[in-house]
């Protein structure tokens, strides 16, 4: 996750605490896992503002059924359905879930 985005997440996390949900749109599972780790346990590359900072934020991938259910179906069809065909929604959801289960303090119920 680039340094600017880390700073934005850090600012939001510090302001709103662990009620602040992070939704990722990463296209590859490895990247999604690293981003999820960054916003929960801290930046594993120790390069950015979240190095050594455990925000423990609830983190989801946009393809997670919980998030999908919250979206307007027309907007989903227009903006995201093509990418559902291109990417591997299940693998992405699972990659983020793994980190969330280990490090997030809150989850969406």
């Amino acid at each position, binding site marked *: 996750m680039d340094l600017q985005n880390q700073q934005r997440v850090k600012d939001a996390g510090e302001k709103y605490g662990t009620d602040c949900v992070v939704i990722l749109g990463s*296209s*590859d599972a*490895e*990247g999604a896992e*690293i981003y999820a780790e960054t916003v929960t346990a801290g930046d594993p*590359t*120790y*390069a950015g503002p979240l190095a050594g900072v455990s925000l423990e934020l609830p983190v989801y991938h946009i393809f997670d059924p919980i998030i999908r259910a919250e979206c307007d179906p027309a907007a989903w069809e*227009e*903006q*995201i*359905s*093509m*990418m559902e*065909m*291109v990417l591997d929604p299940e693998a992405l959801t699972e990659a983020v879930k793994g980190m969330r289960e280990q490090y997030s303090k809150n989850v969406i119920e």
Partner: protein
Amino acid sequence: MSKVGIKGYSYCLNHAPETGSRYGGTPYEAIHSGKEQEYLDSLPKFLQSYEHALHYAPNQTYIGGISYEEFESLKTPWVENLLSDEKAKRYGKFGELMPEDEFLGLISACDEFELVWLEKAFAEGSAKKLAEDPVITEAIVKRVLRPKNMHEISEIETEVKERNGLALYFDGKVIGCIRSGHPTDPCLTAHVLLENLAGKASGVLALLHLLKNTGMNPSDLDFVIECSEEGAGDVGQRAGGNFAKAIAEVAGCINASGCDVRGFCAGPVNAMINAAAQVASGARKNIAVVAGGSIPKLYMNSRDHVKKGLLALEDCVGSFAVLIVPDDGTMPVMRLDVLGKHTVGAGGAPQAVTSALTFEPLQSAGLTFTDVDRYAPELQNHEITEPAGAGNVPLANIKMIAALAVMKKAIEKPAMMQFIKEHGTIGYAHTQGHIPAGVPFIGPACELIKEGKIKRAMIIGKGSLFLARLTNLADGASFLIEAPEPVAETSAVSKEDVKALILEALSEVAGKLA
């Protein structure tokens, strides 16, 4: 229908591991942060030699050392399946892969303001080697040897230590420096000037190869449009330009003028459209679209490469040039009536961008997805991007096009994989921002069209505008290249013909009056 001919193209690489491993954006940032010593200590162990770079298939594909079709058939990973010595030549059909010592000499030749100092023996060695290059002119060789650009090593060291110069290295030793252009102006620091001079020099190399490949006399070139991502200027106008004219000057194009077009990675496609429109309208006789490459993008992803114990392959400054001329029915053509345009209101979702750049222009021309034989979107080499978590960019793009084709009912869903295989392209370009943005395939597409193997290709460039912090909008542009059609002969009437007709009519009238 407005069309222009694509008369020729060139693609070059400048190997620059010693410059890149110090002044590429990622290592440079790490050096200055002082926090990543382990990475910096490890990076030199993962650099690729010039010989290795020559044997690396994506590099040879870029310079035309092997054909795109041959590249597609090669065993992967390319880094473990190097080409034979026979195929690993410095010069290809499109251009060359220049070694770093000669590149530093060429950078010095492109300096007008005594900004580059090279140690005398190094400059002489570099000039001697450059003289062997078939496109390097005698005038350029002489410029490397100008006394104002050659200095003692002690002077160079003083310039670096006391006046914010930037040391240049070869074989691990300091062999020169880039001098600071101003004591306080942040747009004229030695690092910025190195970027700009390297961009200029690599652009010059591409233009020289274009002139050679097309057989064009430098003095016949009418205009140059430069489309890299560098910004040349001072604090009063930090990207004022003009790379195009500066490049044309060194290449000896005395009758050309030029200007720069910018648009991040979409710059080259926009420059092609700009050039084609000017040539089609008759505003210019011919235009060379040229881009040099980027020093800051060297080793951009090397943190991940080093961490994973992989060769850091981002060691070449890329460049290209394309010559646009009026369509005469004999050359592959670029159509101006089918242009992909990402509008402000289109939105930034990949679906909206893909639709604006592929479906919408094709639909407006009565074409469908399968009418395009090959799509060339971002052509980054995936052996560089995948270890850095950026995935296989060209594959992701063709998958998006295929998925959109399914949604628009141009193909059935089970045919997606077949579509991807048949209509996609494999990336082979260095991660130099604007360099991989569709344009590397102009050359191979034209070659395949000339060989009758394809009829139509789409070149797509996308830009990440958010990087400038001006807007969060997405961006992109696209155009089609097609096989030529015979140009219908126009019966031009000359002044003499008109005179003869009038005389004939008058004598007829005179005859009747008599």
